[in-house]
């Protein structure tokens, strides 16, 4: 995932964040053959969604890696900040009773 704040489509005078008329950045998600979720595989530049999908096909599925492609413009993705890692994720570390191995079931009960 990119950290760069991707520009809006540059306006025709070339003002704003992307003065050089660079195409917007897209994030690419591919679903493999075996029914897994779409997974982020990388980024690319494209002028619009249609071209982003065509480019994603050429760049990320040359070896049969996928049967479905999602693209989303990077600027539409909201993400957690690295600094929030502690407050967000530490609370789950201490809750070991959420895992099945926390509970001792006697062998006599059989498989559970």
């Amino acid at each position, binding site marked *: *995932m*990119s*950290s*760069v704040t991707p520009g809006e*489509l*540059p*306006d*025709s005078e070339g003002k704003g964040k*992307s003065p*050089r*008329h*660079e*195409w917007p*950045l897209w994030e690419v998600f591919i679903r493999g053959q075996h029914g897994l979720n779409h997974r982020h595989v*990388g*980024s*690319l*530049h494209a*002028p*619009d969604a249609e*071209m982003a999908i065509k480019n994603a096909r*050429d*760049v990320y599925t*040359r*070896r049969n890696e996928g049967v479905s492609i999602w693209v989303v413009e990077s600027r539409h993705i909201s*993400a957690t*900040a*690295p600094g929030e890692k502690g407050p967000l994720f530490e609370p789950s570390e201490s809750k070991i009773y959420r895992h099945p191995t926390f509970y001792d079931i006697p062998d006599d009960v059989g498989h559970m």
Partner: protein
Amino acid sequence: MYAQMVKSTGKGVTPREEMSDEERAFQDRVDADIKIEPRDWMPEGYRKTLIRQIGQHAHSEIVGQLPEGNWITRAPTLERKMILLAKVQDEAGHGLYLYAAAETLGITRDDMTEQLLSGKMKYSSIFNYPTLTWADMGAVGWLVDGAAIMNQVPLQRTSYGPYSRAMIRICKEESFHQRQGYDIMMKMAQGSEAQKRMAQDALNRFWYPSLMMFGPSDAESVHSAQSMAWKIKMNTNDELRQKFVDQTVPQAEFLGLTVPDENLKWNEDRGHYDFSQPDWDEFFNVLKGNGPCNAERLSARQKAWDEGQWVRDGLLAHARKSAARKVAAE
């Protein structure tokens, strides 16, 4: 190695006691093999060195398409042509993965392209040598991609997350490249006398330039010491070069070809081959822009960039219009 002589801060490794709290926390994460991600704090030198290194690597993949593209229309069979096309297409993909990784460090794709064209950013010296015969396609895959793999496999463990993930993708695809090269060499080496001569000639011309790909000895280099502390360089140039020679010599023997080095010999004590260094004056001269194909390669890139301008502009105009229509419809 596709990145050569990448300059770091030039100051050597900062001693721990002189580091700021942020730097120390950063170095601890690197030492613990925790990946650094784009939005994490990182020293400015780390960011800049990585941009230089990944950018140079990306440019090498793209410029590296040129010597091979040279033979697509002249491949000896339709199958060979399709394979070569697929390989050259892979190189474009590798360039794109790497450009995307570099962009996460805050440089734009256009900036990188312009710095390549202005000569501010470099690409690997190897691509400034010409590909004169079909056997060169074999030598490039076998030796050039082989040397690149030596460097790229350890870089899968590099500290910077996006770079590491790009390397993992690239390594998966790169072994096809080396094997197809060796396959061409086998065919030529087992062919007619004329074909054998072409195979030997290709090895003669590509051997030393391949050894140069790892860069000159960096045992004393402050740049390398810093890059290794940051885990953006995993081995010294000499280590990788030795590994490459040790791996490649038996492969040449299998082909019945002779490595063009009178001093090449197995050293029982070291458990490695002894070999001659390439001509480092030639290397520096090629880096300066005076290799056989420097001007040709850069002018091909310049031409592609200039002639693609209307495509970039046209598609952007189209996207702008569609976006405006969508807004109007809402």
